């Protein structure tokens, strides 16, 4: 082959790469585009089958956003979600960090089996668990309280995050901890001074994951909470913006867009670390 052909091939490869990337970006970004469009679209514009759904045919409107913020308790729901999310993240970190670390350092079969066992509990779906758990909640007198969610959500965030953190801790060589212990720290000191700073990525992953899991949870939120002022976003939005068979599409899309953008941005900031988080422990 001539030089020119190699060059042409290289360009072709570049073009191919770009094409694939563009396709994926379009795929990933489309839901956001759709939400953003619909959020400001007149309902008549949206519903008219003769209108191109990807473009505006009438003037964009803020009406749906107004409905969302002033006719529903959307802000309250956001706040409730953030409140529950914050506490659940805290509880999850406090529990999963020591648990993941112990499992990572429990060498041999025991640690591995325990880890798998803990992860398995994550796989039991809330649709099965909510009935027995509602008994627990009512006997604790937590019905219709956000604290019921604070109590129940860790039942799936902790197993998942313990498992995730175990992977992060496992790749930290034992030597480094032992060096810190010889250099003058206790095991706890070595953990705090050396292991934790090396596991920042894991902790970030846990925070974001826990928050995402809390935001998308529906079954517990629906069954344990009855007052609309105590709904979380994932329950409040569909309950109030879908009335019978009437869908308030504009407001629905607005609610989803506003709730999902911060998470999407966070994900993007730490995307490399996430990938590391998932592949960590896969090798070795």
């Amino acid at each position, binding site marked *: 082959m001539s030089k020119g052909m190699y060059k042409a091939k290289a360009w072709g490869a570049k073009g191919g790469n770009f094409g694939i990337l563009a396709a994926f970006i379009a795929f990933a970004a489309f839901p956001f585009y759709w939400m953003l469009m619909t959020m400001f679209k007149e309902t008549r514009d949206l519903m008219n089958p003769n209108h191109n759904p990807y473009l505006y045919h009438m003037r964009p409107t803020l009406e749906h956003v107004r409905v969302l913020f002033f006719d529903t308790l959307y802000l309250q729901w956001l706040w409730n979600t953030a409140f529950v999310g914050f506490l659940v993240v805290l509880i999850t970190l406090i529990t999963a960090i020591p648990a993941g670390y112990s499992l990572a350092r429990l060498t041999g079969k025991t640690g591995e089996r325990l880890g798998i066992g803990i992860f398995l509990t994550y796989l039991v779906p809330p649709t099965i668990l909510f009935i027995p758990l509602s008994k627990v909640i009512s006997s604790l007198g937590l019905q219709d309280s956000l604290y019921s969610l604070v109590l129940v959500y860790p039942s799936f965030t902790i197993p998942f995050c313990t498992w995730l953190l175990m992977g992060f801790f496992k790749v930290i*060589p034992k*030597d*480094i901890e*032992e*060096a*810190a*212990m*010889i*250099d*003058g*720290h*206790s095991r706890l*000191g070595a953990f705090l*001074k*050396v292991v934790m*700073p*090396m596991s920042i990525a894991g902790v970030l992953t846990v925070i974001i994951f826990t928050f995402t899991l809390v935001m998308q949870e529906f079954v517990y939120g629906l069954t344990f909470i009855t007052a609309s002022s105590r709904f979380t976003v994932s329950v409040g939005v569909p309950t109030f913006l879908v009335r019978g068979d009437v869908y308030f599409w504009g407001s629905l899309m607005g609610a989803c867009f506003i709730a999902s953008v911060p998470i999407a941005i966070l994900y993007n900031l730490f995307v490399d670390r996430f990938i590391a988080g998932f592949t960590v422990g896969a090798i070795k």
Partner: protein
Amino acid sequence: MATVETRDIRKLFGDVKAVDGVDLLVKEGEFLVFLGPSGCGKTTLLRMIAGLETQTSGDILIGGQVVNDLPPRARKIAMVFQSYALYPHMTVYRNIAFPLKAQGFPGDQIPQKVEWAASTFGIGKLLHRKPRELSGGERQRVALARAVVREPSVFLLDEPLSNLDAKLRTSARDELQQFQRRIGTTTIYVTHDQVEAMGLGDRIAVMSGGKVRQLGSPQEVYNEPADTFVAGFLGSPPMNLFERDDYIAGFRPETFLPVGLHDTSEPLVTLWAKIHRVEHLGADRLLYGTMRDTFPNEKVIINIPFTVEMQITPGEVYEFAVKEKDIKFFDRSTGLRTEPRRFWEKRS
């Protein structure tokens, strides 16, 4: 500075006897080497002295004080790991300062101490770098600097040179020894490399199967091996050993020379050997052969310095000789050294 003593110390991992009753006394300022094949328990013994592993039984004393129940940080030791175990998220400066901070050293004196330790190992210019930006040799120096900075009373080193290439290893060995002589800190050094052990150690503890087989100066363990294990482990190629009725006789490959090359009045024993193969290794010539008369058909390796120009042809039989005093005898059942058995007089 301090002495280190172990008293009948043992460590079991399940039913594996990693360390099986070791009694040692490391003198003040001494450089002691644990030498032995892979899996003989060197690291385990060192880790017990450091307090990273709890012994199954026995006592450990540092500076005359029993430290069985003291955690690593209270034993006034410093350790250099085979992996160096540098803190990857800290700069070289913070790595070296780490033990000082951990032990509550007055903050205003830390920079000066770090400078001193860094300049001792010639890494003063690297203080702002992270460990991943360093070469293997530089990492090793950082690990050493971090170990010396707090002036420990005992140094523990677990194969600190094994990650370096051969050339760097030689110079690092030299530096390490000079450094140890200068500061005079009691040092225990683990290696499975006999050249390193012979070159560095004031004394060597030769280990096998969790036991110390012999403790002595490099010359002692080499020239007067206490048992067949030590005789076979040290030297490359190792000692030639020949089994007889109830004893084992052996001599080192370099003591067994063509008969004409011994110009000595000391009594010699002459033996015949047939040479099968010759290897030229630069400074040495190795002859592989089998013995004739006294030890018929037993394999033998002979090491002749390259300065000897005698022509040796594979397939020929030559007459060799060894000084009587260079032949060592061992009990056949226990493998331990015994008195000489003048087997050569029984020769027919």
